[in-house]
């Protein structure tokens, strides 16, 4: 053991030697596949609007390039510094979430039911703070959990973690951005599980969350259209033309793909705009329709590899902070992938969660690259 460790210790100065190449490749595969799906989803509309047919893909490629730079930046320093600055990150996160609510500084699309998020407008780009809140919360919780005294979190510890998570979560929920709230819940849940929280306490937390959500619905915090999408999930035959139009069209698109798909660029549902929000939340329909079951399975396989690598990194890390960071990132990607694809194929309610690296949108792309950067960082410096 010592011998082996000693051999590796000699290489510790050059963390790049420990790059998780597999994770890099699979991320690249997802991002590039995303460009192709996005092109197919947006081509007809853009031509119809007399814009260049590559307009959106180009913007997405630029964003991905920026994301790549951010990722390298995150990899360049030891991830343990994050623990030091976790409090600042957390505080900055809360401040931005509050700022974005101030009219004139933050923006929201009033009357546009599909855009519930709030953002800051920087030139031609929209920065959605709630995307970065996911990563910020992971860092903060990892810092808190890694500093716990007892091997198993006490009730006090759990309550502290919950209180820390509740502040940004509440602000996101009030935007109202149910999708991101769900992702944050999953991050907290995943990290608490790995931290060894007692099952009884986890169950109590789950109940408390459900009660809080029910209360929020009762008090009218949730907008009608969001409620309608959630209840539409329970009764898909009701009112096809309005609430369930999206999910029916999405199912038709995915189902009509069959085993081998209709061929790239040949999906009628895709090309004729039958699936709304096709380049953002419903982009998986393109994979389903044009590449069929085989293509969808391969595509989901990329995510499976990504998640395997993330959990593996959590496992390999000798440092609890690294383990918790990787756990949080894995939870984040898993829940986003599952809820997004599940909503497209009709087993999850429509909540507006983007498909990581694929849905059109700058903030999620950047935030996800940062998350991958954290994973790679933990992997590179796992022996220290």
């Amino acid at each position, binding site marked *: 053991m010592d011998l082996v460790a000693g051999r590796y210790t000699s290489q510790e100065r050059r963390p790049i030697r420990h790059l998780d190449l597999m994770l890099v490749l699979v991320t690249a595969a997802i991002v590039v596949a995303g460009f192709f799906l996005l092109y197919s989803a947006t081509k*007809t509309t853009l031509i119809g609007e007399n814009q260049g047919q590559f307009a959106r893909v180009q913007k997405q490629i630029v964003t991905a390039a920026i994301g790549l730079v951010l990722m390298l930046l995150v990899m360049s320093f030891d991830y343990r510094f994050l623990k030091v600055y976790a409090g600042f990150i957390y505080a900055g996160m809360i401040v931005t979430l509050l700022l974005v609510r101030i009219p004139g500084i933050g923006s929201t699309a009033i009357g546009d039911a599909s855009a519930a998020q709030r953002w800051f407008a920087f030139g031609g780009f929209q920065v959605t703070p709630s995307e970065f809140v996911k990563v910020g919360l992971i860092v903060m919780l990892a810092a808190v959990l890694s500093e716990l005294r007892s*091997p*198993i979190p006490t009730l006090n510890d759990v309550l502290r973690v919950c209180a820390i998570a509740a502040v940004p979560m509440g602000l996101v929920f009030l935007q109202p951005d149910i999708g991101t709230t769900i992702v944050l819940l999953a991050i907290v849940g*995943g990290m608490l*599980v*790995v*931290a*060894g929280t007692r099952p009884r306490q986890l169950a109590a937390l789950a109940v408390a969350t459900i009660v809080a959500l029910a209360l929020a619905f009762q008090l009218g915090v949730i907008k009608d259209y969001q409620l309608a999408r959630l209840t539409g999930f329970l009764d898909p035959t009701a009112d096809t033309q309005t609430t369930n139009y999206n999910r029916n*069209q999405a*199912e*038709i*698109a*995915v*189902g*009509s*793909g*069959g*085993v081998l798909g209709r061929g790239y660029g040949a999906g*009628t*549902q895709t090309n*004729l*705009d*039958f699936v*709304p929000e096709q380049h953002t939340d419903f982009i998986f329909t393109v994979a*389903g*329709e044009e590449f*069929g*079951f085989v293509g*969808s*399975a391969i595509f*989901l396989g990329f995510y*499976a590899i990504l*998640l395997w690598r993330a*959990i593996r990194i*959590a*496992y390999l*890390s*000798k440092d*609890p902070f690294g*383990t918790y960071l990787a*756990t949080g990132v*894995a*939870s984040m990607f*898993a829940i986003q*992938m*599952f809820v997004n*694809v*599940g909503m497209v*194929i*009709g*087993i999850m309610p429509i909540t507006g969660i983007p498909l990581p690296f694929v849905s059109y949108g700058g903030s999620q792309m950047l935030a996800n690259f940062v998350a991958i950067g954290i994973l790679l960082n933990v992997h590179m410096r796992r022996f220290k």
Partner: protein
Amino acid sequence: MEKASSRLKVLALFVALMFAALGTRLWFLQVLASEQFRVEADNNQTRVAETDALRGRIKTADGKVLVDNAPSLEVRVDKQVLEASGEADRVLLDLSNLLQIPVKNLRASMNDPKYFDYQPKPVAEFVKENVDKYISERKDQFPGVEVVPTSVRDYPQGREAAHIVGNVGLIQKEQLADPHYRGYGQSDLVGRTGLELQYEKYLRGTKGQQKVIVNAAGDTVKTLGAAPPKPGNDLILTVDSKIQHAVEGELYRGLQNARTQVDEAGGKGLLLKAPAGAAVVMDVKTGGIVAMASYPSFDPRWFVKGITPDQARYLYKSAQAPSVDRAIGLTYKPGSIFKPLVALAALKEGYASTSGYYACPAEWIAPGDTSGAVFTNWSSTDLAPMNVAESLRTSCDTVYYQFGYDFWNGWRRDSFGTNNEPFQRDLRQWGFATPAPVDLPGSQAGVIPDAKFAADHPDIYPDGWIPGGDVLLSIGSGDTLVTPLQMASAYSALANGGHVCRPHVVDKIVDDHGSVVKTVGGHCDTQLPYTPAQLNYVDAALQTVTTSGTASSAFAGFPLSTYPVAGKTGTAERPPFQSTSWFSSFAPANDPRYAVVVMVEQGGYGSQTAAPIARHIYEHLFGLSVSGNVYGGAAD
């Protein structure tokens, strides 16, 4: 982190479950249920725009167009577009002023449940061209409003042959569900009655189709293919417009004339009512109907704009129900016009012979009958015994009572074996008791009563099939019921040597290039079981009816030597109403061409009302000068 590794397995398990759930669902959608989704995807993107085909025309044998198409400008309103414009009230008010239609009515048309919501709904037809121009030039003032050229039925000959051609109407809900009407749309016109109904599949044509691919907004992205509409086939009738026109006129004139005369058959000194009647002219060699009229009639043009409540009441609810074609759609007691057919059955079965003489008393009682049932002749005095020919000329009932009784006796003794009703069987062979196989809807069967009929109607025949049944059948009375068309078919067979032809109104069906798609007539296969001698004997006897018999007054002055008419009068009692007046005939008797049958409800004696109408019809048929009203005399 030993503990953490086992907890990471919990996390990994969660993730694995997620993939399992997604994979299962994808398997269901893309492998198991894919076909259904493929269909839905195709339905999503393809729309078929249809253009109506011009309906086939209906023309007479002499080339007159009975039913044509006329263009009509129709105003249609797309409710969804109109309401989306937010100016619905203003637009409807403008439209109301322009079309002179109350807003209330416009709204009612727009909410017509016959149409789907996405279909533009017609609110006005036959609008003037300047309305079209006005609306077209101000499109933005009339959102959702369009003026569309459509086609409606047109009747250049007016009321002529109204019962034959029938009418079209909007397809009905039940029809849409009927597999016969597969491919029809919600707003399609279909034949409702007459030839329009009978030949719907030929007249209809094929709609033009334009298949397009649309996007989610409904905009056309690409046209896949277009097929122009194919007009329906034209019907060329056996009906001759000139004769049809003349027959309708003569039927009307005869009825008018009858109403000025006393009902001599009724004997109460009342005027004849003669409210209704029918006349059929048939080509005896083919069964082709040269003319067929039913009175009272109606104007097919009423249906073009939709019948008014008054017209509906007149057509369907009034006592005479003018919508009914009396030539085929109602049954009547034939009376004495049945006698030639009975005589042939009696000659064939040996109850009569051409050389025999038969008693013609004023009254006849069935041998051995003590019930007091007395059957009377039309004459109250006993006439001298006569042969069969004479019995036809003078229409002696009592001679036929005996024949009927003889048939009944044979049946009772079962002397005919298993097929023991030769009387009924022979009469049915002429085409009775079964709907005339004419190419028109609504043909009625009528009744030739027999033992089974008696068993089915114990209220009329409490003692079963008694002699009176066959006795009354022998003079076409009792429960016997026929249609005028069946009589025309039978007399055609009498004229052509015993061939019963399938009656038909359509001669041929031609497509829009004039090539024949189908020929309808030419079915004269049934051969009646009578010898030429028997048929000739009866034909000769029927000629004496017009020269010196019951119809001689009606045919007084008619050139019978050039155009001999073989005919038979009939006066069917129908208490409490006045008798049904019949004349059934064919001519020229030496080389028969036409069978003419006239029936007048409550027209009294056959000689009095029906025979003179037939005489005038022959005058038209043979191009003779048409005589004024003739008095046909009071003869059965």
